């Protein structure tokens, strides 16, 4: 168990409203990632973080922002949700706590977002 939880697990919202998804980890991992998964596209990286207050964009970052004010939490915000952001969002952390970094990711259970 990599100690990673996402909230909320399901959310339905309306176009134009702000939405924040939370990813929480309990094992002091440095690297955290937000992916979205859509049929036919697989997993696509939105943003990632390599430390507190250190973040960078992925391949599909438009319309999303992130924040990491403490090691354990990585927040993904949709400032003004659109229907194209309906998706399943996965948070991931990298590596085993205290173990060698082999680049493997451990994923949360996902947050299913529907924008009407």
């Amino acid at each position, binding site marked *: 168990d990599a100690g990673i939880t996402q909230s909320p697990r399901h959310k339905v919202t309306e176009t134009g409203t702000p939405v924040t998804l939370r990813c929480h980890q309990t094992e002091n991992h440095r*690297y955290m990632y937000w992916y979205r998964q859509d049929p036919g596209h*697989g997993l696509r*990286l939105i943003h990632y973080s390599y430390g507190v207050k250190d973040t960078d964009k*992925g391949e599909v970052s438009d319309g999303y922002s992130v924040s990491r004010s403490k090691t354990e939490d990585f927040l993904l915000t949709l400032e003004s949700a659109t229907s194209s952001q309906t998706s399943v969002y996965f948070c991931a952390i990298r590596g085993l706590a205290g173990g060698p970094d082999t*680049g493997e*990711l451990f994923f949360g259970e996902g947050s299913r977002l529907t924008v009407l």
Partner: protein
Amino acid sequence: SQKIEQNSEALNIQEGKTATLTCNYTNYSPAYLQWYRQDPGRGPVFLLLIRENEKEKRKERLKVTFDTTLKQSLFHITASQPADSATYLCALGPNNQGGKLIFGQGTELSVKP
């Protein structure tokens, strides 16, 4: 641009047979390649990693090959079981620390009893 392609069609095989899944990539020189399993409604789970200087890796009934000349990885499940039914994702990793993994779209495997 970088591109990863996995078998686009779902793979249906009989229990006990070997399942072989393909991952091809272009415009990329990965330092390593990973395979993940994903069950419906769940997050992906890491299975195996193979580095660019390795030809083959095994773990129990799983075997992965990595051919950097062909830009291809093959993922084999021997003596397949219905419990192996899932979607399998390949992912490429770069050489730098904290590097961003690029995922394929996945291949759905169904093992019939």
